């Protein structure tokens, strides 16, 4: 399963922008929703902690390091180089608005940077303090789904109660960082009967230094190399509509105490500075993963991370997963080069069910993946690429460039190719299907400001599938086009008009034409306005319309309207978001996604389907420098349903209410 927790950074940015009363969150909303449509799970990431820390203790722009700037996804490599060159040539800045004098920096980028940077004399280099952070969260649904109800004849299907509980803590002291997280999902028991430990428990110890051993992590950690085609536990930006985000940056080994139960490594990872720019990162990982036995030797992976029902509990941590390898990277003149390999082995043979569309899917118990990646800047052009080999035979290839002649014009293109049999267990490139194999994709992105206050973003992708895919019994082509116009009406108000078209193929569901494949057009129209009434009040209104248009059956239509009222106190201690949404869709095909504010570190992008309304109230209050409390309540109300959900998750009645409480202690 591919995890793209990049969104957490986006979410944090949204959070910060609401706080600072900025209006640059349109693209961020879009990205969130696009990723949610892909069904990608998002969770905590080490970078999120970084962003939270720098939003509280901003970085001094005069003392910032290149590695720190690279964590800001909205900065391109050219902008980073220009900024560092400016500081080298002109010395320290006196005000953040001096950024306007740096080539490639416009008001939009400066506004995005403001929450995270300050300008101070060099001797007062601001660094985040050592300390302890503790997060505890509790979520629950008020109504009780069928799976939790005990009747006369049967016990409840779910072993545990309907609450979700999370406890996460970080301790930082000088060069040492420790982290731990434990989580219980709804339906799971708090303590596993076999291990007498929480259902999910991860932790790490991390040592960082500027000497030979730059970083050492023991415990759970994440890695991201190159464009992530062969190895990545992190997030990908390669599929975002903003052309400046078409390239991924490598991220070194970093400790992990998030809640995603699948996408991390467990063992030891080291970064060793061999000589000058040569950095070697050997790593070793072993952990048990969830799987079900198909026969005595073959297994099928269970990728939900849930251990609620009898069969899910039986499948918990059944198969050992071993992985070891190494990454070496260097920078020679203007060219960053990185290469690596790893060996991956399961205790049992992985078997994919051989339905026709899975004919080329990976089966086996071990593999070796190798890769070579590069990136370079030539004038105003960033070029990057990656070649990855699976068992020295199946290949995947990525090549892209970004041209940024000035900050008001960016153009990017990316091409990607996967052999039928290419497989990487930890991979971080966007795919329109679960499996990338047999996919060819070309993406173009354009960003321009034809007028001072008007920005135009254009995104177009074409994907050709060289084999059948799920629910498409034919070689097919799909495409996606998005055009977005953002206009600043004033310093406090912005509007966005967006159109998106997805064209793809799908099997007919009609009884009479069951064997046929039809083409489908999906249109989405959006109008949104943001208005910062004052430093305390902000209102956002969105109207969105979707049309799902199959070739041989009737169209279905969907509407979503929402109104946000956001209040932030002058001291920034209290932040309240109220949202009322009304939705009306003919069916699930015309559903509409919308990002919702949530408690810190949590993510919500619900799909609006059916006819009804949703009310959301999200409150955070900083009681003191140490203690912050969060509360969220949301309610779905459906007009034309007598029950919500299906199967064991079914709730009787037409209301569903969700609650969340969270506290954060920061010493």
């Amino acid at each position, binding site marked *: 399963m591919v995890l793209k927790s990049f969104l957490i950074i986006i979410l944090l940015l949204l959070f910060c922008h609401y706080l600072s009363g900025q209006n640059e969150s349109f693209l961020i909303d879009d990205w969130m929703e696009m990723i949610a449509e892909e069904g990608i799970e998002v969770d905590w990431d080490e970078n999120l902690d970084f962003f939270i820390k720098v939003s509280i203790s901003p970085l001094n722009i005069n003392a910032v390091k290149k590695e720190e700037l690279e964590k800001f996804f909205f900065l391109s490599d050219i902008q980073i180089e220009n900024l560092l060159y400016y500081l080298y040539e002109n010395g320290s800045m006196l005000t953040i608005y001096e950024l306007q004098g740096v080539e490639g920096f416009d008001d939009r980028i400066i506004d995005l940077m403001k929450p995270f940077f300050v300008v101070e004399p060099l001797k007062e280099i601001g660094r985040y303090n050592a300390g302890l952070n503790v997060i505890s969260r509790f979520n629950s649904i008020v109504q009780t789904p069928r799976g939790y109800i005990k009747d006369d004849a049967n016990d409840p299907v779910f072993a545990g109660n309907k609450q979700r509980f999370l406890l996460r803590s970080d301790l930082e002291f000088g060069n040492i960082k420790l982290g731990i997280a434990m989580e219980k999902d709804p339906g799971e028991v708090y303590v596993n009967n076999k291990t007498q430990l929480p259902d999910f428990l991860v932790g790490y110890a991390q040592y960082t230094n500027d000497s030979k051993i730059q970083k050492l992590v023991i415990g759970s950690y994440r890695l991201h190399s190159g464009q992530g085609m062969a190895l990545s536990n992190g997030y990908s930006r390669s599929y975002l509509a903003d052309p400046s985000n078409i390239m991924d940056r490598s991220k070194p080994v970093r400790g992990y105490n998030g809640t995603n139960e699948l996408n991390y490594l467990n063992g030891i990872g080291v970064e060793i500075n061999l000589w000058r720019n040569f950095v070697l990162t050997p790593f070793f990982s072993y952990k048990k993963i969830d799987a079900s036995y198909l026969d005595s030797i073959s297994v099928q992976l269970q990728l939900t991370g849930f251990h609620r029902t009898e069969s899910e509990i039986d499948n918990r941590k059944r198969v050992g997963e071993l992985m070891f390898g190494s990454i070496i990277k260097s920078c020679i003149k203007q060219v960053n080069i990185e290469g690596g390999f790893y060996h991956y082995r399961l205790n049992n043979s992985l078997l994919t069910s051989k339905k026709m569309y899975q004919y080329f899917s990976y089966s086996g118990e071990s593999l070796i993946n190798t890769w070579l990646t590069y990136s370079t800047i030539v004038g105003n052009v960033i070029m990057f690429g990656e070649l990855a080999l699976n068992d020295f035979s199946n290949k995947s290839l990525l090549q892209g460039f970004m041209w940024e002649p000035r900050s008001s014009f960016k153009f990017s293109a990316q091409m990607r190719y996967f052999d039928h049999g290419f497989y990487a267990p930890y991979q971080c490139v966007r795919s329109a299907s679960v499996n990338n194999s047999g996919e060819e994709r070309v993406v173009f992105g354009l960003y321009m400001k034809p007028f001072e206050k008007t920005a135009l973003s254009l995104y177009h992708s074409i994907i050709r599938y060289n084999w059948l895919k799920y629910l498409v019994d034919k070689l097919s082509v799909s495409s996606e086009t998005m055009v977005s116009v953002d206009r600043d009406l*004033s310093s406090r108000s912005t509007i966005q008009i967006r159109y998106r078209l997805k064209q793809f193929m799908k099997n007919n569901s009609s009884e009479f034409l069951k064997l046929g494949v039809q083409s489908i057009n999906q249109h989405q129209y959006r109008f949104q306005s943001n208005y910062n009434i004052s430093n305390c009040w902000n*209102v956002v209104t969105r109207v969105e319309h979707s049309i799902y248009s199959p070739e041989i059956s009737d169209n279905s239509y969907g509407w979503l309207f929402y109104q946000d009222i956001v209040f932030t106190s002058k001291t920034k201690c209290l932040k309240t978001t109220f949202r009322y949404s*009304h939705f009306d869709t003919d069916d699930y095909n015309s559903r509409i996604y919308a990002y919702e504010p949530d408690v810190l570190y949590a993510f919500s992008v619900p799909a609006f389907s059916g006819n009804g309304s949703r009310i959301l109230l999200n409150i955070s209050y900083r009681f003191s420098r140490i203690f912050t409390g969060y509360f969220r309540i949301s309610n779905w109300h459906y007009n034309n349903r007598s029950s919500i959900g299906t199967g064991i998750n079914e709730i009787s009645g037409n209301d569903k209410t969700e609650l969340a409480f969270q506290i954060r202690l920061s010493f």
Partner: protein
Amino acid sequence: MLLKFFLIILYISSLTPIIGQGVLHSNPVSLALSSCDVTLSNEWSVQGNPAGNGSAKSTEFALLVENRYSLKELTTRGFSCIVPTKFGIINAAPFQFGFSDLNISRYTLGYSRFFGTKVLAGFQLNYWSVYISGSGYFNTLISDFGLIYSVLPQLTIGVHLFNPEQSSIEYQYYDYEIPGQISYGIGWKFMKSSTYYIEFEKEYDSSPNISNAVQSELYKGFIGRIGYSYSRNEISSGVGIIIRSFDINLGFLYHQPLGFISSISLAYNINK
């Protein structure tokens, strides 16, 4: 007589069943602007967007009569009163629609005010009473929220939620749904004396309606209005005349199969 009966049945059955459009939007300004009234601030904001009352500077009274398709059974009568206080603006209005066998009354009480200099917000409670011959009275309470904000001196945005809690009227075996409605509109003053309105309006159980309209002060004290609804394919028009403290408005809408809807109102501003 048969045609008259047919028209009444057709009207009542085709619009939000028991409530009738009459007490939702029945004023001549809204009618002339094809219901593009969510950004307006006038004596009939009680129907379009309660936030609009918040800009009132002095006490106002207004009366209205609206008739649909020249049938006296489909007549709406209403009265509106807006009183500024030092805490904000209080408004109250009764409306009554129908005839002896079907009678719908709406009584409103609202509060609105400015937040800062550019944002108006309003909240309103509506007591709804329906009388059906042979069945008796049905009553319920409905809420009404609105926001109007001036993004620019020439650009105003309005949002209005009517019945977000989706109240219905229950009586014995009957459950009459009151139409929840959400409206979003923009008013753009493209010339010194002319404003263009576009509005998205959606009842919870029906397709959305998109309307646009233009209001222009043709001469001092004489206002012309014209509107068109895309979804309903209706053209409307009207005029407004301001004579000292009095404000007279007329509105007309032509419905293709059924005929004309006409509305007239008279408003009096105490301190004008």
